[in-house]
């Protein structure tokens, strides 16, 4: 399921694809048992970094994909044909984050981990 948000809810988006509509594990508001906490701690040590990389790689691919399909939205004349319009409806919620991701000035300290 894709959370369909549009308009000013700028930043959700890519996230929705990525998470498949699952709720954020926003644990700061959630009470968790000791067992869960230990499990989380181990997950954090062992896998969080790897999972993050996997997702980050995914983000780059998403961005590339959007760039190729909707590049002229940014004034890059890739001249995508007819079919990018077909894909447009699905991309709508992602557009803002995508733009932010592409245009955010980053320096290498942003790209390290």
């Amino acid at each position, binding site marked *: 399921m894709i959370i369909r948000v549009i308009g000013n809810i700028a930043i959700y988006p890519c996230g929705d694809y990525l998470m498949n509509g699952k709720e954020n594990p926003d644990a700061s508001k959630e009470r968790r048992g000791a067992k869960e906490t230990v499990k989380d701690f181990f997950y954090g040590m062992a896998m969080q970094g790897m999972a993050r990389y996997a997702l980050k790689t995914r983000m780059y691919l998403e961005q590339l994909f959007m760039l190729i399909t909707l590049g002229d939205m940014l004034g890059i004349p*890739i001249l995508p044909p007819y079919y990018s319009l077909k894909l447009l409806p699905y991309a709508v919620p992602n557009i803002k984050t995508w733009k932010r991701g592409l245009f955010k000035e980053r320096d290498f300290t942003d790209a390290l981990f």
Partner: protein
Amino acid sequence: MSDFKFKDFVERHPNIKFFFTGGKGGVGKTVSAAAIAQYFASQGRKALLASLNPIHSLSTLYGQDMWGKGIQKIEGIDNLWGVEVDIKEKISTYRDQLSERITSFLKWADIPVDPSAFIDIAVTNPAFEESAQFDTMTDIMLEHGDSYDVIVFDCAAVANAIRLLGLSKIYDLWLSRMIESRKEALSLRVQLSFRRDRVMEEVKRDPMLADLLRQHEKNRKAKEILSDAERTAFVFVTIPLALPIAVVQRFISMVRAFDIPVGGVFVNRVIPQEAAESDSTDYMKNSYLQQSRYLDMIQEKLGDLVSAYVPLYPTEVAGVDGIAKFCDDMLNFNPE
């Protein structure tokens, strides 16, 4: 009989510099274009004949290899130059620009796919071919306009020729939107930057926006020229048959909608009376009869616009001499 009669028309509009020929495929556009150019050359004016056809029509016509070689002197006649553009080069420039830009976008990205494949695909997009043609045409107009007295363009088949010119308008809409998007994108970039001053500088020098603006400006100039009846004339070529006439008619209405001035209609392949009379097979007789019907139709529908009649020749028109003959008939031939 008509105000458009080629010689009169040219004399009345001495400043026309750009001629375009258009019409249904196979009616003799290339030859007509060559004849126009050769006419001016014989008047001592410097003429350039430019082919935007993807096929080597000029090379074939003059028996001289000009494909992709830039502007060439056409041998056997003074004051005449020809150019047969290979838009592949233009497209490869597009490709380079595009790939540079995509790469710079992905500066920090560690991605497991090779983006160059996308770039290749993006530039094989057919739209590139069309914009490249239009680009080339405007380039020739703007760059060489001053060095020649007359430039005659031989465009591709009808519909594409018209679209090519129509493009100046469509393209404009599209370009404007593109420029706007680019500006939006750049301001977003500034907003999201930490080195704001620096990024602002970079943004000001943004090559892509500069390209787009340049393109837009070029486009504007081209449009201005194209819709200026004192500088541009569009000559349609037809033959006395239903389809080509219908096409020219449609074409003229479209061109007028784009504010492009019409510079007359050439009626090509008119069977000369003596040829019909000397022949008693049904072919010539029927054709001649049919032709007179169509000539009437042309009179009725295009009437005043007709600027020349050119006879049907027993053999194909080719070479400087053949075209000179065509040119001569274009000025003097009268089917009546």
